[in-house]
């Protein structure tokens, strides 16, 4: 069990700059990481974090094209109260939501993250404020699990599920 297995034991939620630089230079892929006892690869985590922040900023700025550019072509959103939402429905949703609402607040609090081959699992809670053109702002909170997928051009959202937190 050489070095990748050894890497699986790295605990590096916030790797130091030097290690991150090495990891970025080498782009060493780690095939699978055990949640709880094993940290993800620094390179993959950094790349997913960057993509996630881009995605968050896209929603805050109302940049539909940027947000759509960060989802996979066969994305599925799994929202409460409705069946699976496939790619065309997700595209329509993004366009409609951004035309209808301004989003001044979108905060994500990560609880868990690990890389599994060409996929990364990101779990946490979110808080969002949607301000319609008329009417009162809508304050939403919930729990999310996002499955990111490594694709040509970077990490993209492949599955996104939310469910309700207790009131």
């Amino acid at each position, binding site marked *: 069990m050489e070095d990748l297995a050894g890497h699986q034991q790295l605990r590096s939620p916030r790797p130091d700059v030097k290690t991150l630089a090495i990891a970025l230079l080498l782009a060493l892929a780690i095939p699978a990481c055990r949640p709880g006892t094993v940290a993800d690869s620094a390179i993959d985590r950094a790349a997913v974090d960057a993509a996630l922040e881009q995605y968050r900023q896209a929603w805050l700025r109302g940049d539909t094209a940027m947000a759509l550019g960060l989802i996979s072509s066969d994305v599925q959103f799994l929202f409460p109260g409705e069946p699976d939402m496939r790619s065309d429905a997700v595209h329509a949703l993004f366009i409609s939501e951004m035309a209808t609402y301004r989003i001044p607040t979108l905060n994500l609090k990560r609880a868990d993250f690990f890389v*599994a081959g060409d996929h990364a699992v990101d779990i946490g809670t979110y808080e969002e404020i949607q301000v319609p053109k008329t009417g009162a702002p809508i304050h939403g909170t919930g729990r999310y699990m996002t499955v990111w997928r490594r694709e040509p051009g970077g990490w993209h959202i492949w599955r996104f599920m939310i469910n309700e937190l207790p009131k």
Partner: protein
Amino acid sequence: MSARSLLLTTAMLAVTSLVARAQVPADVQAASRARIIAIAKADSATWDRLTSDSFTVFGVSNHVLTKAQRLALFKQQTPFEPRTPSYEHFQRTGTAFVHRYQIRDQMIFEVWARERGAWRVASIQVTVVEPDSAAMRHAIDSIDTRYAAAFKRGDAAELAAFYTEDAVLMPANMPAWQGRAAISQGLTGFLAQFTISDARLATQDLIITGYYVIERGTYTWTMHPKTATAGTPDIVDNGKYLTVWERQDDGSWKISRDISNSDRPGPM
């Protein structure tokens, strides 16, 4: 093949195997074992001693790490219990030995060579062994069926056993249940309130990544409050889930992360 030639072939294979084993010096085998333990224990000094200065490791995507870079990463490593290699095989190639073995989902090829009077690893290639997708689908379907059956029986202990020790179950409208004990407690509480007359799970797709499987599925269940008065209708719900399965040391699969929501409007 005749019985005679089969016997001859078997005898020859046995002799070849004995010769191959005999040709592997004990010090190569000992060094190999010591190095595996050194990695597990984060013992960089032993690892350094058993690793060539020109060492390179080729990762799953053919990314390369040198000895110095690997040593730098060693500093962050948390020790873990050494795992026993399987499918282990040594092969002499000239003055060097190729050591091939598998640990968990990783197949490792090491090249051992003499350097400064000792055996050292010169190069390593790591590849991921992906489980057969049809077998994997069958395994997950089978567990899902047993899971649904346990749900209908109201067997919280059996249900909890499907989860890893550090699993997280995130039911809608409830706090996350973290760890098998909390999952067991949560399920016990839930099943004390409801009788489940029907429960079905259907896998929609699986992503297999060696050590993990990510399942997207749909569920249907029918439940009845145990305290309901006569004539109270059943509660029927259907929805979807994302489940992360994690391969265990014994090759079995357990649920590591589990989230779901209902397709029906309003809290379920």
